[in-house]
């Protein structure tokens, strides 16, 4: 297992040498510049945020369905 000190050193190393942290097979050979930087940036951002959006949408749909059902039940049950 990686010790805490070793992990901290690794993170600090990546912070000081950010280009070395480009471990992905596509990004590592890329020297940077041009439209591709824009592509990498927005792709990473989209793929990072999308799972949260998807989970929020599914959760929202379930919540809405349950509320609608509760309202319908409230209307049919005698007070």
């Amino acid at each position: 297992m990686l010790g805490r000190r070793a992990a901290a050193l690794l993170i600090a190393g990546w912070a000081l040498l950010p280009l070395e942290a480009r471990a992905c097979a596509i990004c590592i050979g890329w020297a940077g510049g041009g439209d591709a930087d824009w592509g990498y940036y927005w792709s990473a951002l989209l793929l990072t945020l999308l799972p949260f959006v998807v989970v929020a949408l599914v959760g929202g749909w379930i919540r809405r369905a349950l509320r609608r059902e509760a309202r319908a039940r409230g209307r049919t049950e005698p007070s």
Partner: protein
Amino acid sequence: MSRGTIVLEDEVGTFDGAKVGMLIFLGAETMLFAGFVTAYLVFRLRAPVWPPPLQPRLPVGVTAVSTAVLLLSGYTMWRALRAARDGDDGGLGRSLARTGLLGATFLAAQGYEWTRLLTFGLTAPSGIYGGTFYTLIGAHALHVLAALAWLSILLLATRRGPMVPVFGMYWYFVVGLWPVLYTLVYLA
């Protein structure tokens, strides 16, 4: 509640479990296509010239017609859902059959376009252009094919009512995704 529908229940209320399952599945599908689309964008933006030299151009006009056909199938699916809600079995069958016919037309047009592109030398191993094209458009075509197989089962089933709204969600996903892919791959 109609027979054949799985229902999740707690003290707050009930909802259709099949719809939730489909929603989660479509969430996973969204992630899959987001991965394909971002990979395509990165490859495309890295290339100095796109399409690469000596590669065939994609048939924008023919695909625009098949896009219209697929969008029209979204409308017939909406009619089918309305017929299912109103309990109109005849209307449901007719609308589902029209949806299937339009989907099959779209798929046939795509297949014809692919055979032409293959004869012009655009294959998946021919380069990043062909590879990304067949992955992205091929994944969508596979989804349309799966939807058509499901639709065939629905058309043959005697009690299709409960599953039609769930199938509708899938069909809307397949139809809604295509204009995004068409704009990205063919027009942009």
